[in-house]
């Protein structure tokens, strides 16, 4: 009778799960919360700070146009190009800053590791869709804007299953 008990156990397990709460994250209404503000790198210790690797953010007052992020990206995705900006910074004589093509970027964060001036870090923004390919190319001015993210869903563990609260 091992077969019969096995079948009954399986059916029982199935019926039991009809009462368990459903787990699905309803994405556009709920968004998962991440740790911190995003992935950043501390060149003095050589270690990053934990965070989500999303869209980059560029600080114009720190960027020196040193090309290091572009060089780091060369072997990975070739997503970063240095472009001229109409800004006058004392530390940025050439007036060039990175422009990132999110059609190519793989979000590995090696450019953030490469930046020695804390000018580039990554944010929690991952909603980067666009109708055109040109829309995916973020100019230094666009990268300067801090993204407005509302992510608050976290796992809620309970006896009747886990949900996204």
């Amino acid at each position, binding site marked *: 009778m091992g077969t019969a008990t096995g079948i009954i156990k399986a*059916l029982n397990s*199935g019926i039991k*799960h*009809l009462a*368990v*709460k*459903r787990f699905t994250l*309803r994405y556009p209404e709920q968004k998962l919360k991440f740790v911190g503000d995003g992935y950043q790198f501390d060149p003095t210790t050589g270690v990053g700070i934990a965070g989500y690797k999303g869209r980059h953010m560029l600080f114009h007052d720190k960027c020196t146009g040193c090309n290091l992020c572009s060089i780091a990206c060369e072997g990975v995705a070739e997503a970063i190009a240095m472009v001229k900006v109409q800004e006058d910074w004392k530390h940025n004589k050439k007036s060039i800053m990175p422009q990132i093509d999110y059609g190519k970027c793989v979000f590995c964060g090696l450019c953030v590791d490469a930046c020695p001036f804390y000018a580039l870090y990554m944010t929690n923004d991952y909603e980067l869709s666009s109708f055109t390919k040109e829309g995916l190319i973020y100019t230094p001015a666009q990268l300067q804007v801090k993204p407005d993210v509302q992510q608050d869903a976290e796992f809620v563990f309970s006896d009747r299953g886990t949900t996204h609260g």
Partner: protein
Amino acid sequence: MSAIAPKFRLGYFLKSILDNTFWGIILLTLVGIPLVMMLLFYLELPVINGKLLSPYLAFTTLADPSRQIPLIKSLMQTDFFRIAAFPGFGFAALVAAGTIFVERKMLAKLQLRVGPFYCGKIEGILQLMSDGIKLLSKEIIIPAKADKPIFWAAPVLFVATAAAFVSLIPAAGNGWVVANVDVGIIAVFAVIGFFPVITVLSSWSANSKFPFIGGIRALHQMVSFEIPLILSVLGVVILTGTLNLTEIVESQHTYWWIVFLPIGAIVFFIAMLAELERIPFDLPEAESEIVAGWLTEFSGMMYGLVQLGSYLKLYAFAALFVVLFLGGWNGPNVWPPFPAEIIEKGIEMGPITARFPGLPLLDQQMLNDVLWFVIKVVGVIFFILLPRGVFPRIRIDLLLHIGWYKLIGLSFVNIFIALGLLYAGVLGPGGIL
């Protein structure tokens, strides 16, 4: 200016609506109404309450609800109503549609997900409708070397056969059945016997490898499970002494046959799952081995028709199980009686009192029968749907092994139990109980 429809103008939109309305009214008055009048003139109309239903009278009934009731009542006595609406196709299709929705939601609940959710605002209740519209609007692609007439005919035949099966099922007492034949069970098995033929025809005519293997599998499976299916019913037939399904239901007035013939019921249920090609016996459609089995080449509404047919078949089998083993429509009287004051006084709405001679439309007994019948059918359908979330697919040799060795043996055990009960004089014609 939206991105989705850049050339949209509200003025053009309103103009097109007005144009359409204008032409609709013109066509209706010039063509539609004269056509209806002519038809009514030539049709032979029934006599209601001693009056011939002339076209004029028919139009007056539209204005007076109390005079519609005899019309509806007379309509409900016709065969057409039986076939198209209540115990027949319409009712079965409604149950089938409900089954599809319940199946998807229940499976989703079991698998800790949401299922259809956004279509129709309330838990995706209109998902089935949108799926149907999608299937209707899709292109029908036919393989280049297919045998076209047979390939076209197969889905239609499938639905027609399923509908024929439905027509044999009695849904309530007092003759609420489309075809009340004396050889009911034999007629049922005769109709079931068409399914493998249609399957093999369609799979052969598609002229493709995967449908062919699926069709052969379906043939093997259906043929080998028809034998235990028939044998398991034999016990009921022995004890009731009749083949008429209505009489079988009436014989279960005090006790259900599942009480005395549990083995037969189990065998019937398993064979039923196999006949329905449902998990764990959905080998003809095993998508990881043979793409979609004999459904591979169907597209658009042809596929939709096959799905409709298979869910009609599911309802019919569940109803047959209820009829044979679960006492059909028998059950305690729970339906509330029709409120008497509506019949006597009518409905008072301020100064007006609407009287409805001829109410109630359906008597209490019939509604009670239908309620119990539907409750039982839904219960059986739940147990047909549940294995889909719990069991994996079985292999063809194991399937045939189960069919030929185990189920046939068990159904013989069942027959011996029935015969024993009969000869011991416990049950059957002239038995103790």
